[in-house]
């Protein structure tokens, strides 16, 4: 055959290099090769209906990923060679990176493991290839994030032992348990959890406005790895949407199963992202957009369009969406207030926002900030000024499912703490919300096994009974260096010396009041 165009078109190339590379087994039963495919009750009748709209094949994948890496590492080099950390807006910003490195980067690695696993479990070749590429992407994200942060680790505290902390520290059990929950589910639930609910519906909130904020705060290295990772994410999101459509189109019995997963994983993701709400509103000294604005664009608008599209499959928006929408007015403030009280046990610092920042919050949260949150901050600022920086010495009650302290309030009742409890086989369990309690009720045998950091400390499993010992020995957080208040911390003093100033506690306080 003589062809004028020697290049295969995308559709043919995808067919040859993906599906045609697979084969039908002859001397082993398919069920023995892919034993996990049907235990969740999902019915797949025809794998050939699986569509990858990007039609990405391995050759193109390597080519574009290599190009992304070259661009990224050129910027890392330039950033390090030019002491880029000296040009960020303010050293308070670095605390967001400490949370990112200990809370998010290990999730990239967990995602790598998760996709490697499910990439083996599907009998459809298209799905296997997509999962394998995503596994490699996730490993790349974990590595590039560690490389980007390694420069900060030379100059700031709290970044020295992220993987160790991720497995032990109380608030890091929130992201860790989220991914452990997904990875211990079946392959279709994993994809619904991570590819759809997390990647498609929610990660924009972390990787788009927050990374844009990193750029606005002078952090060239972070915005670059963030956007470079996110360029893979466009592919992952598409996979997420295709997965859902594929499962729903295969059999009507799949609809209620998928709906339950969407309800569960939307909520789990929303709780996880409460950490991001505070990173955006409190940890970016130069503000780009508020959490509530980001939620409106990336969830209410984009998520709204998505769930409208899924209506024709019989899927409705997530069950507790209204609670999440209402929480946008409160979330970041409730989170920051909690971390402010427990800075003795974190690898990052906290502070009371300056006057200008509080005014920005009043403007962005006109119905809630001045009424519920500003007075609390002003009181704490006064206490601090009088030598009584407030730390809460009672360990918090954690939710059995999301593992966030039970710090949230009821929808429409911002002064009433949201708390649910139930007894299961003689033990009492506590929850932050109706939604987490619902999740527990459906799979109690899974969640009674949760490793709750506060319980573990009280049970004596964390190398000591007092907070200081646990923090220093078990968490590897260096007491007096990595933790406590930002003002007067070694990071703060170091930053002042970079800027040619010296630390004067009185001047600092008045500067903070004026800031």
């Amino acid at each position: 055959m003589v062809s004028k165009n020697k290049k295969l078109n995308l559709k043919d190339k995808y067919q040859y290099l993906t599906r045609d590379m697979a084969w039908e087994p002859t001397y082993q039963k398919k069920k023995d090769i892919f034993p996990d495919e049907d235990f969740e009750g999902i019915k797949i009748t025809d794998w050939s209906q699986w569509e990858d709209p990007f039609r990405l094949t391995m050759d193109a994948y390597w080519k574009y990923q290599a190009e992304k890496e070259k661009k990224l590492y050129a910027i890392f080099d330039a950033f390090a060679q030019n002491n880029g950390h000296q040009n960020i807006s303010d050293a308070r910003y670095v605390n967001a990176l400490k949370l990112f490195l200990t809370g998010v980067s290990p999730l990239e690695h967990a995602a790598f493991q998760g996709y490697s696993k499910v990439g083996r479990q599907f009998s459809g070749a298209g799905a296997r290839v997509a999962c394998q590429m995503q596994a490699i992407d996730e490993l790349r994200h974990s590595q590039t994030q560690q490389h980007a942060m390694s420069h900060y680790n030379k100059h700031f505290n709290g970044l020295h032992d992220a993987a160790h902390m991720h497995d032990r520290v109380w608030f890091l059990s929130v992201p860790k348990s989220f991914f452990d929950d997904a990875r211990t589910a079946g392959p279709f639930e994993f994809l619904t959890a991570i590819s759809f609910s997390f990647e498609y519906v929610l990660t924009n909130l972390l990787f788009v406005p927050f990374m844009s904020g990193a750029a606005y705060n002078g952090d060239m290295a972070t915005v670059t790895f963030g956007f470079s990772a996110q360029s893979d994410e466009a592919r992952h999101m598409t996979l997420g949407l295709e997965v859902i459509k594929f499962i729903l189109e295969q059999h009507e019995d799949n609809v209620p199963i998928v709906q339950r997963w969407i309800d569960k994983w939307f909520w789990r993701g929303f709780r996880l992202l409460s950490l991001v709400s505070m990173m955006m509103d409190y940890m970016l000294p130069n503000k780009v957009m508020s959490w509530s604005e980001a939620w409106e664009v990336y969830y209410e608008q984009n998520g709204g369009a998505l769930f409208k599209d899924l209506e024709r499959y019989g899927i409705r928006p997530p069950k507790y969406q209204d609670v999440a929408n209402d929480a946008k007015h409160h979330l970041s403030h409730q989170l920051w207030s909690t971390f402010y009280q427990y800075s003795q046990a974190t690898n990052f610092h906290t502070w009371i926002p300056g006057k200008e920042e509080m005014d920005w919050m009043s403007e962005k949260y006109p119905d809630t900030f001045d009424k519920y949150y500003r007075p609390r901050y002003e009181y704490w600022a006064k206490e601090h000024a009088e030598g009584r920086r407030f730390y809460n010495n009672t360990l918090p009650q954690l939710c059995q499912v999301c593992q966030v302290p039970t710090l949230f309030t009821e929808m429409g009742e911002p002064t009433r703490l949201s708390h649910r409890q139930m007894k299961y086989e003689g033990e009492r369990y506590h929850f932050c919300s109706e939604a987490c309690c619902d999740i527990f009720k459906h799979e109690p045998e899974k969640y009674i096994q949760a490793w709750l950091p506060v319980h573990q400390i009280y049970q004596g499993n964390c190398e000591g009974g007092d907070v200081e010992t646990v923090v220093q020995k078990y968490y590897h957080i260096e007491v007096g260096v990595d933790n406590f208040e930002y003002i007067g911390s070694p990071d703060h003093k170091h930053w002042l010396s970079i800027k040619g100033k010296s630390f004067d506690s009185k001047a600092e306080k008045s500067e903070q009041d004026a800031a």
Partner: protein
Amino acid sequence: MSQLVFIAFQDNDDSRYLAEAVMEDNPDAELQHQPAMIRIQAEKRLVINRETMEEKLGRDWDVQEMLINVISIGGNVDEDDDHFILEWK
């Protein structure tokens, strides 16, 4: 209810041509500049044509090259050799 599709690009040299091409082929789209990124949204449908892009760049352009500069998307994707379409049907 309005149903928006969107695409976000890293704000760089390639993307400026991309944004130009998108705005030319989708005159009703809305272009937003945010720190380090360009975000374009449109009602229901947004199309990027290889032909328009090649005209802007003055060279051959592979639709998959876009993967390097894209930050995020919203909408169902339909891609082939000549175009990249985002759509809510």
